[in-house]
C-alpha cells in the first residue's frame, strides 16, 4: 500500500489537478480575501492622489503571465479612471504591446475614460534601460507618437507632461526583472515613486525594496490582483481565479503531506528490518 502511494502514477496527479480547477470553476466557489499591507499601501497612495494626477503603467509581461497580471492592470486602471487620474501606458516587452492596449481599452470602456484625455497608450520601444532613461529627459524623444501613431504633440493629455517630473507614480506590471531596473535607474536617478505588480514566482525578490520604500506598494501575484479588486469593491476575474487556485494549493499541500507521511513510515519500516 505504502509503495503504491509513494509511486502514484503522475497521470492520477494530473487528473486531480484538473478536477481541482474544473469543479470549483463550475460551482463558482468564492472565499473572502484578506488584504495584505503592500497592496493596501498602493491603494492608499492612489486614494491620496488628487484628480488630474498622472501615473505611468508599464505592461512588462507577455501572454504566459497575463492570467496573473492582466487582472491587476484592470483593477488598477479602474481605480485610476474612477478617481480621474490620468494614465500613460507603455511596455518594454514586445509581447506586452497588444496586451497593454487591450486592457486599457477594456478598462476605459467600463469607466467611460476617453483616449487622449484620460489616458494615452504609447506601446513598445526596444532598448529597456535606454527607454527608461530617455523618458527621464523627454518622453517624446522616445515615443514621438502613441500606439495608433498619433503624434504626442497633438494629444491634449500630454500637453503638460514632459518627463518623470510630471508623473506621480510608475507602476510596473512585471513577469521578469524589469521592476528591479525601474528601481535601479528611475527611482535612484529621478527619485520617481515606483510600485509593482508581479507574478507569484518573483514576489519574494521584491520585499527588500518594499522595506527601503524604493517600492511604495506591491501587488503580489494573482492574490494581489484579488486584493486590489477587494479594495476597489469590484470583485472580478482575479477574485474568481484566486478561489479556484485555492483548491489547487490545498491539493498540492495535501499531496506533499501525504508523500512525506508515506516517506517517513517507509523509512521507519526499513530501519526496523
Amino acid at each position, binding site marked *: 500500500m505504502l509503495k503504491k502511494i509513494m509511486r502514484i502514477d503522475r497521470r492520477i496527479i494530473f487528473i486531480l489537478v484538473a478536477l481541482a480547477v474544473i469543479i470549483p470553476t463550475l460551482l463558482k466557489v468564492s*472565499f473572502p480575501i*484578506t488584504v495584505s499591507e503592500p497592496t493596501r499601501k498602493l491603494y492608499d497612495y492612489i486614494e491620496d492622489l488628487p484628480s488630474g494626477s498622472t501615473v505611468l503603467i508599464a505592461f512588462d509581461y507577455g*501572454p*504566459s503571465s497575463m492570467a496573473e497580471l492582466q487582472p491587476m492592470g484592470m483593477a488598477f486602471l479602474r481605480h485610476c479612471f474612477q478617481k480621474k487620474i490620468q494614465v500613460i501606458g507603455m511596455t518594454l516587452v514586445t509581447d506586452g504591446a497588444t496586451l497593454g492596449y487591450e486592457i486599457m481599452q477594456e478598462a476605459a470602456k467600463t469607466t467611460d475614460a476617453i483616449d487622449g484625455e484620460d489616458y494615452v497608450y504609447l506601446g513598445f520601444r526596444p532598448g529597456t534601460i535606454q527607454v527608461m532613461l*530617455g523618458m527621464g529627459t523627454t518622453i517624446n524623444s522616445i515615443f514621438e507618437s502613441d500606439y495608433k501613431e498619433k503624434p504626442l504633440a497633438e494629444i491634449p493629455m500630454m500637453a503638460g507632461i514632459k518627463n518623470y517630473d510630471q508623473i506621480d507614480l510608475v507602476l510596473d506590471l512585471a513577469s521578469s526583472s524589469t521592476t528591479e531596473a525601474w528601481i535601479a535607474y528611475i527611482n535612484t536617478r529621478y527619485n520617481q515613486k515606483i510600485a509593482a505588480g508581479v507574478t507569484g514566482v518573483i514576489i519574494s525578490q521584491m520585499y527588500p525594496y518594499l*522595506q527601503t520604500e524604493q517600492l511604495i506598494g506591491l501587488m503580489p501575484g494573482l*492574490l494581489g490582483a484579488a486584493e486590489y479588486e477587494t479594495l476597489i469593491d469590484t470583485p472580478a476575474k482575479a477574485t474568481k481565479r484566486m478561489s479556484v487556485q*485555492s483548491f489547487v494549493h490545498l491539493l498540492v*499541500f495535501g499531496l506533499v503531506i501525504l508523500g512525506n507521511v508515506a516517506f517517513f513510515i517507509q523509512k521507519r519500516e526499513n530501519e526496523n528490518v
Partner: protein
Amino acid sequence: MRRQVPLALCFVFGVVMVLIEFSPHPYSKSLYNEVINWSLIIGPFALVLGVATLVQTHWIRIRRRAEYWQYSFVVLIGMIVMVAIGIPFGPSHKAFKWLFMNIQVPMDATMFSLLAFFIASASYRAFRARTLEATLLLVAALIVMIGNAPIGDFIWNKIMPFDNLPSTVRQWILENPNLSSRRGVILGVSLGVISQSIRIILGIERSYLGGGD
C-alpha cells in the same frame, strides 16, 4: 587594432559615464542624452542579428531535413506572416491583433499552465523532509502556499480563534527570513557587478570581445 579599438572605446565610455553621474554641468547632461540616443540607435541592430540568425538556423534545418524540420518550417512561416502584416499595417491592425490574441496568446498561456500539473507532480515526488534544511524549506513553503490562498485563512478562521493566522505567518516569513536572505544575495550580486564592471572598463576582463581571451 581589432582588440585595441574596442578596449579603448570601452575604457573611454566607461570612465566618462561614471564621471557624468557626479557632474550636474549642462555639458555633461547633454553628453549623457547624446549617449542615450546612440545606445537607442544601436539597440535595434541586435534585432537584425537575431532575425538573421533565426532564419539561417531554421533554413539550414529545413534544407538538411534534420530531425523535426517541420517545426522549423512552422517557425519561418509564423515569422513571415506576422512581419508581412505587422510592418505595413502596424501592430494595432485587426489582422495582426487577431493572430496575436488567437494564436500566440493561447499557445503561450497553455505552455505556462502546464507548469501547474508538473509542479504538483514534482512536489509530491521530490519535496521530502530528508534533512534539517529540507524540512525548514518544506515547512516554510507549505505555510507560504496555504497562506497565499484565501482558503487557508477561511479554514483556519472556522476552526481556530485567531483570525487569519496563515496569511499573517506567510507575511512574516516574506518580510523577515526571506527579506534578510534576499538582501544578502542582492548585496553579493551588486558587489560582483561592480568588480566585474571595473575589470571590463580597465580591460582586465576581455571575454566579451570573443576569441577565448
